[in-house]
């Protein structure tokens, strides 16, 4: 199956800008379905990014992050061709991870 994670990590030489889009329903637990039943909460809780053996960014998310969540950040360093590892875990314990090459 295709990864749920899409990454763009671009090095400018001094810094690396990371943009990520994840396919996930991010159900808040406050929305009802067509039958009027509450859709149980199902959302990513933590997303971590690792470069060169250390965490460069950790996102803790609640149910108010949009469906198919997006985040953008930058860190110092990172060269073209370096690996950027990322993984997420949601409130049901489901998880996914990927490794992207910095461009």
């Amino acid at each position, binding site marked *: 199956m*295709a990864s749920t994670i*899409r990454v*763009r990590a671009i090095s400018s030489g001094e810094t690396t800008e990371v*943009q*990520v*889009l994840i*396919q996930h329903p991010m159900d808040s637990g406050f929305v009802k379905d067509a039958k009027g039943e509450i859709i149980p909460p199902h959302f990513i809780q933590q997303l971590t990014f690792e470069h060169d053996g250390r965490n460069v960014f950790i996102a803790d998310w609640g149910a108010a992050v949009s*469906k*198919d969540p*997006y985040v*953008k950040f930058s860190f110092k360093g990172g060269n073209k061709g370096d690996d950027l590892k990322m993984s997420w875990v949601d409130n049901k314990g489901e998880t996914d991870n990927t490794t992207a090459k910095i461009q």
Partner: protein
Amino acid sequence: MNLRFPIHLALAALALAVATITPTVAADTPDPAADAKAFRDYFATKFPNVKLEDFANGPYAMDEDMRRQWEEKEQFAPYEFSLDMGKEMFAKPFKNGKSYADCFPNQGIGIRQNYPYFDAKEGKVITLELALNLCREANGEPPFSYVGDEMAALTAYMAFTSRDKLFNIEIPDDPRALEAYQNGKRYFYTRRGQLNFSCATCHVQNPGERLRAEILAPALGILNAMPIYRSEWGGMGTISRRLTTCNSQIRAVPLEPQADEYRDLEYYLSYVSNGLPISGPGSRP
């Protein structure tokens, strides 16, 4: 006795609606080229600050605050997953070994701007969505739902490979083609549903205005961005999905997707947007 009164009111309302609009006598011989020019001129006059090609970006061309939200979304657009799915589906061969590419000119790449077209053999308008299902059926595959995610993904990919190409809809010298065009135009301007709205009520008379919470898109270039990811849907929608939901919103019972009226409407709307770039897949509120 009880019922006569409201019916009369409804009739009166209709009569009033008809009577108060400046009467113009419509010529009975359709002139598509003149229509398209008048259509473009109308929008150019109404929105003098919007560049012609920018009409393909719909409501984002008319509101700065919305445009900024859109530009932010486009940095990593919500239709990205659909686009990837479409690309994968398009490349995957059917059970018989053939693929979508075999059904289309130029292997299906960069051709979105030529749809819909009038098929002389079939004697009817063929939209891209219809062509995709005809391709599937010709290769022994079941057709996709016209309002589902698969059709949205395939058309998203085909639009993407055609970005910035200009709509180039042709009306061949065939009375049936002209009739289809005229039929589409009639559908566009015809009031329907309990709200008594035509397509034009929203998308010609009031684009840029808010209807409840939505900013109405201009009819010029409205199909260039299809298919679209709508935040309101939380997902993708094809042209068929957009047309049928438009009808429901004005309390008209939608026709079946790809009905003659809808295909003809698409033919008309695409023709009058000739010269505007394909911008799909798009994202919309």
